[in-house]
Structures are given as C-alpha cells and as structure tokens.
C-alpha cells in the first residue's frame, strides 16, 4: 500500500521568503502530481512529474522529483500572499489511482 507523507502540514511564511515542502512516499511510483486548493474551492493541477530528475517551474513555484529517494519537493521562491493555499502531492500507482498526502496549509503573511 502506497503511503504518502507531506512535511510540514502547516507553514506560515513571510512575504519574500523562500521555503520547501517535502513529499515522501513509500513505494515506487513512475509519476507524481502537485495540486493546489484554495479555501472552499476544488483542487487545481499544478505540476506533473513523469521521470526521475524531472523539474517543473511555474512562476514562484518549482517542483522536482527524485524517484530513487521517493521524494518530491515543492520550492517556493519569494512568497507572495496569493500563494496562500493548501498544497497536495499525489504519487501515482501502477494503475489510474493517485494517493494524496494530507496537504500542506501555506499561509503567507505581509
């Protein structure tokens, strides 16, 4: 059974600072997804990482995947208030299913 651990679960940052969210998973996975959820809203796909060493960047967010270490990171550069949301990682299994982490609630303060 695939288990997913996200750290930290709660993150309060100041605007302009950098930080990293970590996603560890327990068994081999050939792809990993990052989603964002705003309060009261549904999940929005941010990144799809499909191979070892994959790196994707969008604005102030950069995601990477190390399949050998079973680790993905979501790095936030120079945080702004608009990035406040809950971020989920989800490694894919051998079929269509995704297993979601518990999410990281990010709050960016002025």
């Amino acid at each position: 059974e695939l288990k997913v651990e996200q750290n930290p679960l709660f993150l309060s940052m100041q605007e302009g600072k950098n930080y990293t969210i970590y996603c560890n998973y327990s068994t081999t996975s050939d792809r990993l997804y990052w989603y964002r959820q705003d309060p009261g809203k549904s999940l929005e796909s941010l990144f799809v990482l499909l191979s070892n060493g994959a790196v994707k960047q969008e604005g102030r967010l950069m995601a990477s995947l190390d399949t050998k270490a079973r680790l993905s990171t979501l790095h936030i550069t120079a945080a702004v208030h608009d990035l406040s949301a809950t971020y989920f990682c989800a490694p894919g299994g051998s079929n269509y299913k995704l297993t979601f982490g518990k999410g990281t609630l990010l709050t960016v303060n002025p």
Partner: protein
Amino acid sequence: DVKVTQSSRYLVKRTGEKVFLECVQDMDHENMFWYRQDPGLGLRLIYFSYDVKMKEKGDIPEGYSVSREKKERFSLILESASTNQTSMYLCASSPGLAAINLIQYFGAGTRLSVL
C-alpha cells in the same frame, strides 16, 4: 478546458436517507473517481471507474456504492446516510492509459451534511 460538474454544491440530508451525488465530465475521459475530503485526513478514494459499468473499490468503500451507466456520468450512492458521512465529496476524471500524464481533473465538490 476539461469540465467536471457536480450536481450540488451543498446538500443536507437526514440519517437513513438514500443519497445520490451526481458527477458529469465533458472530456470523454475513461476514468472517473469519487473522493471524500475531511480536515486533517486529506483526500481518500471511495470508488473509481475505468469504463462504463466497471468499478473498483478505493480505500474507504464501506457505506457507499457507485453507478456508471454512461461514460460521462458517475454517481455516488449513500444507501443509508449516517452522520459520519458528513463530508466534502469530490469527483474527478482522467484520461485512460494511452494518455501521457493521466492528470485528474476535479469538480467543485459537494458539501454533504447528514443530520
């Protein structure tokens, strides 16, 4: 753009009622999913379907059933609603294995309260 539409944003039901949650997608996706989301627990998969009339149990299927009679529609059924089924329910769809990335696209969610 992919659109996944859930029929209700909010529902209030009574204990013991039979509840239907409906989900429709417009992208001809093979796969559809039902999750529930609870604070501190993240998303947990209830059931998924990879083809019409095909279904597989997810991690927490007890107390739920599903129906997929048409490719675009996937229904979640609570046979006899209980208070511990009060939750946010999210529907998602994704393309089949022939697709490169298998991204799941989510609906807006249905917040169900069982009294």
